[in-house]
């Protein structure tokens, strides 16, 4: 569960460039994920790895292809001080965990081994031995994540045909 670290304002155009949006299959999106800022990412990322980044992660376009690309790579979660709002809701809506924790985002370094316990919001940097606590999601949002995404939660509530 190694960490990939990026700076502030990582935009959706570098997470998944628009030239690849003509094929929204998860495998295709994963193969081009982050390629404009980190050409090695897609070929080296492994199941369970974590992205740590600066503020306003996922700014720009509304493309849900961005969290989908990251999720499809096997990335476990993204930790950042803040997320652009459309990326934030897209991640929640597809059931992909994101964690807002400024201190962890600042201190965790690339290559560190990191574990995240979502139920308690505890982030552990195994490499440095430090632990961090993220604020839990509000109950409503946690419910969407627990259902496995927005559409599942709507089905459970029986509000659509």
């Amino acid at each position, binding site marked *: 569960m190694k960490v990939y670290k990026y700076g502030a*304002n990582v*935009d959706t*155009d*570098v997470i998944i*460039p*628009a*030239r690849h*949006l*003509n*094929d*929204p299959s998860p495998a295709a999106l994963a193969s081009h994920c982050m390629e*404009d*800022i980190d050409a090695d990412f897609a070929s080296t990322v492994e199941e369970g790895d974590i992205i740590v980044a600066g*503020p*306003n992660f996922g*700014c*720009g*376009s*509304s*493309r*849900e*292809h961005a969290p*989908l690309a990251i999720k499809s790579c096997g990335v476990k979660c993204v930790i950042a001080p*803040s997320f*652009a*709002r*459309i990326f934030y*809701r*897209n991640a929640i*809506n*597809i059931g992909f965990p994101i964690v807002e924790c400024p201190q962890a985002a600042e201190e965790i370094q690339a290559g560190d081994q990191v574990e995240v316990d979502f139920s308690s919001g505890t982030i552990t940097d195994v490499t440095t031995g430090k632990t961090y606590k993220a604020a839990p999601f*509000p109950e*409503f*949002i946690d419910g*969407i994540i627990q259902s496995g*995404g*927005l*559409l*599942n939660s*709507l*089905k459970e509530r029986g*509000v*659509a*045909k």
Partner: protein
Amino acid sequence: MGMTMTQKILAKAAGLDKVEPGQLIEARLDLVLGNDITTPVAITEFEKAGFTQVFDKDKIAIVLDHYTPCKDIKSAQLCKQAREFAHKHQITNFFDVGQMGVEHALLPEKGLCAPGEVIIGADSHTCTYGALGAFSTGVGSTDMAAGMATGLLWFKVPSAIKVTLKGKLQPHVSGKDVILHLIGEIGVDGALYQSLEFAGEGVASLSMDDRFTISNMAIEAGGKNGIFPVDEKTMEYINGRVSRPCEAFSADPDAVYDREVVIDLDKLEPTVALPHLPENTKTVSEVAGTPINQVVIGSCTNGRIGDLRIAAAIMKGKKVAGNVRCVVIPATQEITLQAMKEGLIQTFIEAGAAVSTPTCGPCLGGHMGVMAEGERTVSTTNRNFVGRMGHTTSEIILASPAVAAASAIAGCVADPRAV
């Protein structure tokens, strides 16, 4: 504690008397929008979830505008999927090639957005309709699927930044300069999770096209939406376009704002944003002479008739510099026709510009103006991220139609007041 305009619209749509910043609500939707990139993902999710019916075939708009007329086979497949879904569910407001325009110019023109409405779109620039006093915001494809199925969506009620506009714009200064200046002041996450609420005596002097441009780029400051008060110009715009009843909301006198930003329109200069963030703003005079290879005039930000008039007035009787390709893209068919009637298209072609059918094309590096390694474009679009319009080493300078037109003629970044 009073409510902002945005909060009042959301409260009503959620069936509540009052909402507070941070409150999670479920609001009734007046319109759900998607394009040829985001709709197919929404359709896949909609069908995967087992939904079989849309909540209201008249309250969904699907606009095939991004990679159209289709640039390749994969894009054509996406359009085919959207087209088949639209036909199957008898979507009233489905716009294919020939009728379509750049969505955020098209929907207001067709009367699909009105004051007080709640509009979501699986496109980040859906915030454009705030210019009409609507609450409108960009969402993702799963949100679009949920909206199409239920007509409802969850929102976190935003707190607000009040943007007070004073004075009046000077010649060759427009809405684009206002919004670029604001983003430069507060940064690309300056309004994160917040609404931008425009106010002040300066609003009255802004044309609707200026207001659309300003609201359009609220997202570039991280904003949830960017909303204008409803005045005579708004009513004049919707008159003849919107026949259904609508409600003009206004902020309570004691509405609470996190902060206030004041912009003196009298003093505003033509402004540009240098690579690779919209917050990297300079006045055009600071960067005049910067070499360029291309100029793009169009997009949901600046492809309206007012934008084309400004550009044509500067280009009339002149020639695009030999080192520059200039691409002009009227945002809708109606705008194209109007530009033809006024002789603007002739002006562009005689100047040596290429004029395209409506498309988002170059703005997102799709087609109709993609850049090679190391090239630089002055563009009236909205984003200048790394690789946005082509090769990762290419660069975008965001500018107004006046600066773009002046730059096309000069062959380098140029001040429209000096051409």
